[in-house]
């Protein structure tokens, strides 16, 4: 689903996404209210932050209720620090600046849907710094949430900006093993995405960043 109030852009992006073999846009909305009223089921929501009736971050929880397992990619022209913290805390799997090219948006959509940590290392580090300095929402972490040595290695590899394949290759494990470790990390940290896991881990000092 695409949620974006500038119609001509949304329609052009829909057209481009529909040309891709792995995407079909099943719903579009130009406001929070219309997005909440969408009845179709979808796997991925690309959501603009600045909508006429509110902040796109407010939609993330609602989308998860109606579409469990949905991945949310935030698209914004106003990516200030407070907004980055807000959307990651709300469970967005990724954030794309509208200064990015159209092909980059498509690629990021593909990456977050595949579960990859999409930002480059410098962006990850910058986000972690931002979040560490802002504090943010306290997440429910399991009392026995002690990461294994391997899970910590996977987290550190995420900080380096590696995708799933890159992490598996770096650690000499299979892709399936890497995904199992990532699933364990998400569960223990109460995170919904690799990016959110990084932010929680950074706040709690589980990992350090440059």
């Amino acid at each position: 689903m695409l949620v974006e109030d500038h119609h001509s852009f949304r329609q052009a992006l829909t057209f481009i996404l529909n040309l891709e073999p792995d995407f079909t846009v099943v719903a579009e909305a130009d406001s929070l209210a219309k997005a909440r009223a969408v009845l179709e089921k979808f796997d991925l929501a690309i959501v603009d932050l600045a909508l006429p009736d509110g902040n796109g971050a407010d939609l993330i929880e609602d989308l998860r209720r109606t579409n469990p397992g949905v991945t949310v990619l935030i698209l914004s022209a106003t990516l200030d620090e407070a907004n980055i913290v807000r959307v990651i805390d709300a469970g967005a799997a990724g954030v794309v600046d509208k200064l990015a090219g159209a092909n980059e948006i498509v690629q990021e959509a593909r990456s977050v849907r595949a579960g990859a940590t999409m930002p480059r290392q410098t962006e990850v580090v910058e986000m972690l710094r931002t979040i560490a300095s802002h504090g943010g929402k306290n997440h429910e972490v399991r009392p026995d949430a002690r990461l294994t040595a391997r899970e910590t290695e996977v987290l550190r590899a995420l900080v380096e900006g590696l995708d799933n394949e890159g992490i598996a290759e770096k650690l000499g494990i299979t892709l399936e093993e890497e995904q199992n470790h990532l699933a364990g990390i998400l569960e223990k940290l109460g995170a919904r995405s690799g990016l959110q896991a990084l932010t929680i881990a950074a706040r709690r000092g589980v990992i350090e960043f440059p």
Partner: protein
Amino acid sequence: MDTPSSGLGARKLRILLANEPRAYREAIAQALHQLRPDVEIETAEPPDLDTSIRQFVPDMVICSEATDTVRSNVRVWVELYPEHNSRSIANIAGKYEEYAEIQFSDLLSIVDRTEDLVR
């Protein structure tokens, strides 16, 4: 500078997109290219708009703010979401049209009308 309004002859219709942000510019350019493959489409950063007009000599421009160069040299232009508003303005051979929320189909229609004008 060539005179784009004097008829296309054998050349293709030319459209220059220099609107911001980049995501809008590229998405609209790509969709236009797919739907109107016979149209020559160029993109430019907004600060390069005037230079690009002199080099590319477009028949139509889509930009965020129409400069004097746009207004005096391009027959058809669209100010798309100026100052990030939802309102857009099209100038089609001196006739102004205002859109409260322009659709992609409106842009396609303006492209087709531009082709009719300059052929």
